[in-house]
Each structure stands twice: as C-alpha cells, then as structure tokens.
C-alpha cells in the first residue's frame, strides 16, 4: 500500500481489491484499460465528441484524405468517405454502435446463461446430462451460421445480428456457470449454510453469486471480444447493421468499394476494431493473470 501506516496494523484487502492491486502492477493491462475506457467514453458521449453528423453527406468534399497526408485538411481529421461523410465522426459513432451493442448483448447472454447454468448446476440426473451434452455439441455451431439463419428468417439488421451472437454466446456462460455451481455446491461453506436452513435461492444470491463475479468478469471480457469481432464481421458481410448506420464493420464494408482510391476508408475503421478488441483482450488477459497470481500467493 502506498499510504504510510503509523501502526503496524495488519491490512487484509478484500479479494477483489487484491485482484485490482495485481492488475494494476501490469502496465500493459493498465494501458489496455485506459484505451478501453477511452473507447467507452467515445460511445457514451459520441454526440458531443463527433465534430460532424455521421450521416451528413457533402458532395463538395468527397474522399478528402486524412489530415496528416499532403492533401488532407484539418477540418476532417480522418478524411471523408465516398459520400463526403466525415470518417472521424463515423468512427466515433461506430464505437458507440459496435461497442455499445456488444456490451448489451454480452450482459444479456450472461443473464440468460447464468440463469440456465445455475438451474443445470443444481439439477442432476440423466435429463441434465443429456441437455448438457446437446448443449455442448450445439455450442460448436459457428455464430456466422446462426446469424445467416436468423437473417434468413427475420431479415437483416443490427438487432437481429445481436440476437444471433447472444444465442451463440449463451452456451459458454451456461457451461461455466454450471461447472462453477457444481464445484461450489460441494464446498463446505455451502453445506454450512444449508445446515443453517438457507434455501436454494438464498444459497445462490448470498453464497454462490458473490464468488462467481470474478469468473463472470473474466468470461465477460472474453465474450466481449468475441462479440465485437462478430458484430463487426456481420456488419462487414452486410448481414448485420445496415448502412447508413455507422457500425464499424459496415463502415469498413462501405470503404471497400473505394479501397484502392481511399485506403483510409478501410484502414481506419479496421484499425479501430482491432484496437478495441486488443484493448479488451489485454484487459481480460490482465484480469486473468491477476486472478491467477492472487490465488497463487
């Protein structure tokens, strides 16, 4: 602890706090967290940060190169696209759409997954085993396939692609919750609570859930990086967000038509997705190693 302690009082940080201390020791992880926080800020305050309306077209300013090139103009930091829209504003809004929808869908998947997983963890017998087996096998179906089918049934759109990815992410939350609940149910403190007369509900909310939060955060960051990649991949394939909605993958796909003429239309949105995923992965990685170190010490 940095703060000076006068008395030799023994200090016992809570487990969460200890994880945070471990996490903070890794510089890379902190940088990742800062970048991620920045992107989150972009998402939250997009209307205040974006210099232009992301949908406003400008016929007089088509394909202006980014400001750091010779022909660039400072009025458009990242240049403009084939319809004269400001790329910087579109990317800021793109962060909002892509990251925002990913976070939403991960939370939803987590909620559903944890619910089913807990039930499955408590439930025993042949029925549970069959369901688990099937679930595990079906978990192998690629998101892209689920998305294609959903698009075929109800049509394209950001929300539909979110459903597809949510569906694909749920099994892994179920899986982890189930194993976790199983393992936890065998522990003695649960038995003690049981002997005190706690109901299953109470057991879950008072004993298991608090212990599960770390696992959920780690799984959540993993799922978030998958969700961002999948949302933008579907947007890119024109199966998710539809233009003119500024979703990073869809922006990238838009830029594809002028890729040779205006490579920044492809490079910058892609770079943003990459940085976003990288930041999430770094934070997730940092979290996991922090957890691991905490457990070892």
């Amino acid at each position, binding site marked *: 602890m940095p703060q000076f302690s006068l008395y030799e009082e023994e200090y016992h940080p809570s487990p969460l706090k200890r994880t945070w201390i471990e996490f903070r020791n890794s510089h890379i992880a902190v940088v990742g967290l800062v970048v991620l926080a920045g992107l989150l800020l972009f998402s939250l305050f997009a209307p205040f940060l974006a210099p232009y309306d992301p949908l406003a077209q400008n016929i007089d300013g088509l394909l202006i190169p980014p400001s750091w090139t010779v022909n660039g103009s400072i009025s458009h930091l990242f240049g403009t696209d084939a319809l004269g829209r400001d790329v910087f504003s579109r990317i800021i809004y793109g962060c909002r759409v892509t990251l925002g929808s990913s976070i939403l869908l991960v939370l939803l998947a987590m909620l559903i997954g944890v619910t089913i997983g807990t039930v499955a963890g408590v439930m025993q017998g042949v029925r549970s085993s069959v369901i688990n087996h099937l679930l595990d096998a079906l978990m192998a179906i690629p998101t892209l396939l689920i998305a294609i089918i959903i698009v075929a049934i109800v049509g394209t759109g950001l929300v539909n692609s979110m459903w597809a990815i949510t569906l694909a992410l749920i099994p892994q939350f179920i899986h982890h919750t189930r194993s976790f609940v199983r393992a936890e149910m065998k522990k003695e403190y649960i038995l003690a609570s049981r002997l005190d007369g706690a109901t299953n509900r109470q057991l879950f909310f008072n004993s298991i859930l608090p212990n599960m939060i770390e696992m959920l955060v780690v799984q959540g960051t993993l799922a978030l990086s998958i969700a961002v990649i999948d949302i933008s991949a579907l947007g890119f394939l024109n199966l998710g967000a539809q233009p003119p909605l500024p979703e990073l993958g869809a922006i990238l796909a838009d830029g*594809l038509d002028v890729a*040779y003429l205006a490579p920044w239309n492809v490079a910058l949105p892609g770079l943003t997705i990459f940085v976003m995923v990288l930041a999430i992965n770094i934070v997730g990685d940092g979290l996991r190693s922090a957890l691991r170190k905490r457990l070892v010490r």
Partner: protein
Amino acid sequence: MQPGIVRRWVVMLTTALCVVACSERPQDPFYESGIIYCSESNPVNFNPQLDTSGTTADATSHQVYGRLLDFAADSGRIVPSLASSWKVSADGLTYTFQLRKGVSFHTTDYFTPSRPFNADDVLFSINRWRLPTHPYHGVSGGRYPYFESLGLAENIAAVNRVNGYRIEIILNRRDSSFLANLATDFSIILSAEYAQHLQNMGTPERIDHYPIGTGPYKFNSYRKDHFIRYQRHDEHWQNQPSAARLIYDITPKSSLRLAKLITGECDAIAFPAQTELDIIRERENLLLAEKPGLNIGFWAFNTQRPPFDNPDVRRALAFAIDKNTLLEAVYFGSASRAKTLLPAASWAYQGDADDTAYNPVLARKLLDDAGIEPGFTMTIWAMPVERAYNPNAAKMAELIQRYLADVGIRATIVSYDWTTFRRHLREGLHDSVLIGWSADNGDPDNFYRPLLSCGAIPSGTNRAMWCNEDYDELLNEALQTEDIVRRKAIYQQVNRLLYERLPLVPLAHAYRYRAYRDELDGMLINPYGGVRFGGVTKAL
C-alpha cells in the same frame, strides 16, 4: 529445450514457406494461351435472342455466334458478315442476302456438325422468334424481347430460301432500320442441324444452354457465379489469330474487378466504376477504352398529371436545374451533356439542337405565369439501381431537390425496390422520375419510339406517359425512307417538337468503359453492343 533447435526449426520453416509463396509470380508462356475477361454478372442463357441484357450479349453474341451483318468497329457502318452481300429492292420491301460459303459450325463434345452454314440456318434462326407456330418458338419461355419491342415479327411477311446460299426477306412496310436490326447483338445465327439433333434427342432447351454457333470461340463449360470457359474455334471463317482459350471470370463487384485487373488475374474487365477511372488512367500497363454510350439518362414528367400536363410548367422546371453540375457530381465527368434523346454516337445526332439553360429567374417567372405558387410540392422518383445512364439517381434527386427549392418548389424523393418501382411507374403514380434508356443499336428509332410514342405507354417504357400524334406521325414517316439526309431532317423536326413540349429533360449520355491490360493485342471497342474477343491475342 536444447538450444538452437527452435531457431534452426524456424529458419527451416520460413525457407519452406518462402519457396512456395515468396517467389515471383509465374511468367510461364502458358499464361499467354488464354484471355481472362472479368464480366459483371451471369448470362441469363446462351442465346441473346431470348434476353436483352447486355451481359448475355457480351458473353455470347460476338464470341459464340455470328450474324448476317456486323457493325464495323471503327466507323459503325454496316458491313458483311455471314451474308457476303445484300441487295434491297427499289420499293424497300425485299431484302436479298447472299450467304458466305464454307463457314463451319463448332465441333464440341456434345455436337459434331456434318455440314457448313447455309440458308436453312438463317431460316431457322429468324423463324424461331418470328413464327409462334415454329417448333422452337416456345422453347425456353418463348419470349424474344428485342424483336417484340420493335414489332419486327409483324413486319416480316416472309423469309424465303432462294437456294442453299441465298435467302430473301420480304417486309410489310418499309423499315430503314431493318439492316441495322439484323446487325445487332440479338440477331444471331443458330444451327438448324443442331436444333434438329436436339429435337430428336428430346432435349430442345439445350440449344440455349449448350450453344453451337459460328463465332470465333466455342463453348466449353459454365459454372454459375464462377466462370464461363470458351475454346478457340479453329475453323473460324475469318481466320483471325485468337487466343486458344477465353474465360469469363464472373465478378460482380467492380472494385474487385479492378483489383484483379491490377494483379493481372484479369486481362480485361467490364464496366469499371466512374470513381476508378483515374486509377486506370494513371497506370501505365492498363488501358481504358471509352465509347460514347448509346444511352440517355433523363428526368421525365408525368404528363398526364396536372400541372405537369402544361408544357410551360415542364419548361420552367427544366430551366431551374443546372445540368452541368449534375453531370459533374453524379457522373464525375464520364458523361456528355444530353441535348436531345440521341447521343453523339448515333448518325442522326444533331449537334446544334436547342437545349435548356440554367435560369432560375426565368423558371420562377414561368411558374408564376402558370399559376404555380411558391411552396408547391411534387415528387421526384429516383430509381434504386445503378445504371450506366444514371449511376446514382438518389444523389441526383437530392441535387435537383436543392435546385427546385431555389425556385420555391418543395420536392420529396421517392424510391422503392426496383420491381415495385417499375410497377408503380407503369401505373403512373409519379410526378417526375429520374431514369434512362440504353439502346441496342445506333438507329434513332431505337430511342424515339420506345421512349415517347403513344404505343410505348402500355409497354411501360414511356415514363412521361406522353402521347402526341404529330410525334408518332413523324417517327413513322422517318422509317419510310432509306435516305439518310431525309431521315435526319425528320429527326431534327422531332427534336424541335420535343424541345417545345419537353415531356422529359434529357440529362446525360454516359460513356461506357472497358479496361484491359496492355498485354492484350487486337482489342477493339465495339460502339454498338457487346465485347468482342475474336482476333485478340495476349503476349506477356
């Protein structure tokens, strides 16, 4: 782990990968043996008689088939092809064609011809679309849109075989565009012997999917969305040096076509996008062939709806817009300004025709005179698809919207999906529409008649819903004479009439582009109709 093992292993692996991947692209003479053309879409079938789409024509008419007559690539004049000469009777009703001898049909693994081309093949090819009773008429749908739209079948009284190498065609009415029609991409010659053979086999529909013709290339195989393979027809009558193989690589995305052209995966590409033209011009090993397109993009008013039934209102709207700005913003300079319906590539083009000029003050005055108050609202329908004659109708509509706002008219832009759009247009639900027309040959009748004649209202090509008896009469009169000067004079009268009545505002004639690598030798741009690969070779 033993030190060094990993390093040695990494070096080995990289070397192995590099041997296959890092080496220079192969420059084997083998790559000179064939031409790859990146086309924009799948052909509907392999018989252009059945379809008016340029894609089908590009893939078949000049590759697989021959025609009685051809357009010369340089001058656009009608020249002999499978007919070595022809004669027109004094009354202009009887056409006699002397056919070329020793023209062989393709020998493929699905058909071996026993005789060369003769009069029977011409009779079969024409009668198939002409006679509803013909055994092959109903095969593959029984619609022959090009010939139907011109009413050719009704105008032909008889097609007679004079002898094995001479035929005559007798018309009901004079038609000075008749020879031009025989030279278009659609008037191809099929093999009567092959048709007979297929009928005996009980599979007549194969004639349109496994084609046999007299063209410089013979069909080899086709996989939808992937490729069409052709092989050189070694016994082609013109005996030009052609590449041994011709492959159509079907690539719908124009940016991908350009990329493949740059990497050399295509030797020639169809229709590069307007925005990509500069890239092609900048690269030394790429050549851009532009031809003035036989097309027109226009802004048509629904003349059956008040107040657009008033010519003064239409003129006012025409004066309110600046055509040059539209040309610049929508076509990026790849189109010429349209004064009349006809592009400069047509022989009847009138360079000094009257044209409306940008004059918002005059426009407002005309509107006031016609009793149109400021704040009047109207709709502009913008077609939802990209066409050469209008690559971005929505953008153009927005620009026009701005111009109209300057003269106090509030315009709303309307668009549906393409099918619904065309259906509603036919029903006349629009105030005005941005659309256009691509013609099939340079004959002026191919523009004037389908676009504005009374008869074209029900068939849905007259977007202005405009019917004028004087106009129709002039058009018919023009077809009664073979005299070019006389016809030109009539079409100038037509132009004047159109300028006065202004059922539509002609906007632009877009250029059509093809780009190819300089390794190709002998590429000629055909001003009328499809791409030609006969006589094209490749040298790396």
